[in-house]
């Protein structure tokens, strides 16, 4: 009972949304948009669970005398501080659409001073990681790795002024060896071929996985393969 009802729900809802696309009369065409809104509302409810979990796990660690107690307090202060500032709307109201860009809002100041710089800084560390990964991964260890290396090398070279001038002297009948030409063609042909095969594979994987979920063949998220 506890496991059967969810399976019936998945079957009905899943089938409904597969068929909806073939049914051109109301309410079907508008259904997906409406249920997406429901999904967002459910995410809102789920914040109670997630936020509660964050507070509980952090507080538990503090209580048990975790060596990082100080930092765990920082998390709690940051959390309740931002929550308070946002809900009490210090410095002025946050517009109903969620626009908080009005000057003087505390919510905006914390966003500009802490949230946005941290986010951008972590995102930009990718420039470092992309270099160290290139150093380690692009080595001609075997034939496959060599193919990877050559493709990456040509594309990297094609993005520098150096790449263009390096092969500019080649005569016309060898123009297919010029870096800009290779750059464009590698991106447009073998690269596209690889991406397309991956996309077709993904589509089949998703179709089959969805079907397994709708039919209740796969149900580990509800616990166990068999009920």
């Amino acid at each position, binding site marked *: 009972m506890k496991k059967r009802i*969810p399976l019936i729900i*998945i079957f*009905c*809802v*899943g089938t409904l*949304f597969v068929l909806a*696309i073939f049914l051109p009369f109301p309410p079907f065409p508008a259904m*997906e948009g*409406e*249920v997406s*809104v429901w999904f967002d*509302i*459910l*995410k*809102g*409810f*789920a914040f109670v669970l*997630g936020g509660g979990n964050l507070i509980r796990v952090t507080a538990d660690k503090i209580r048990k005398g975790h060596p990082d107690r100080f*930092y765990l307090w920082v*998390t709690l202060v940051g*959390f*309740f*501080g*931002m929550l308070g500032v*946002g*809900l009490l709307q210090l410095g002025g109201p*946050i517009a109903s659409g*969620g626009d908080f860009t009005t000057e003087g809002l505390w919510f905006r100041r*914390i966003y*500009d001073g*802490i*949230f946005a*710089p*941290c986010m*951008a800084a972590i995102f*930009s*560390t990718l*420039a470092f990681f*992309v270099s160290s990964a290139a150093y380690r991964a*692009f080595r001609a260890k075997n034939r496959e790795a060599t193919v*990877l290396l050559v493709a*990456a*090398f040509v594309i*990297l070279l094609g*993005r520098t002024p150096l790449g263009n001038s390096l092969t500019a002297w080649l005569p016309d009948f060898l123009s297919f060896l010029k870096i800009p030409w290779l750059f464009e*063609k*590698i*991106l447009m*042909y*073998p*690269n*596209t*071929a690889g991406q*397309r095969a*991956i*996309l*077709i594979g993904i589509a089949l994987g*998703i*179709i089959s996985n969805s079907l397994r*979920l709708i039919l209740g063949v796969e149900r580990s998220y509800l616990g166990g393969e068999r009920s």
Partner: protein
Amino acid sequence: MTMWDMIVLWIGGAMTLMIFSFLYKDNPFYKFAEHLFVGVSAAFWMVKAIQTTMIPNMWAAIWPKSVTAILHAAQHTEPNYVRLIPLGLGLLLLSRLIPRIAWLSRWAMAVLIGFTSGTYLVRYLQSDFIAQIRSTIIPLVVVTPQGLDVTQSLLNCILVFGVLCALMYFFFSLEHRGVVGGISHAGIWVLMVAFGASFGYTVMARISLLIGRIDYLGQWLQSFGNIL
């Protein structure tokens, strides 16, 4: 620049440096920035969810008259009782907080998973399966008014056979030996070109991010100069 802009810039610059310090190794500064960021950002998205979804899309839809003070547009809307469904599902989800009836939350979860599977099935069938097959159907030989275009024909062949070989790599129920093995091996090569190319291509976007940050730190340093 107002005093507040200045303070915000200073804190932001300091946070940026604290985050970057992780690249050397883990340290108290990074730990501080990380923990603060986690707390602040979790609350940020919660407040956003309340403001952009819970109030306008649920509360105002069901009881528009009760929120006219903050949502003027709600004055003229009729109640949309369909939104009682997500409210109900949300309450089911919260049953997790009461262990005795926690299993009820699976009903809400089942609706979500059913919705995701159903919509994904048809969406990917259209946009990735059918559309990608369609774009791969091209002539292997290209004839122009000047005659046979050898280069273009070759490139088209690479595209078509590339897709076929790489697809062979994904076959699950055939042993990758003999002819199948050879084709799927060629498929791996195609995938490797694709991976190498898109890795190399993305580098520029990643470096741009760092340029943006270093520019920001430059402004931060300049603000010190302005003070002195």
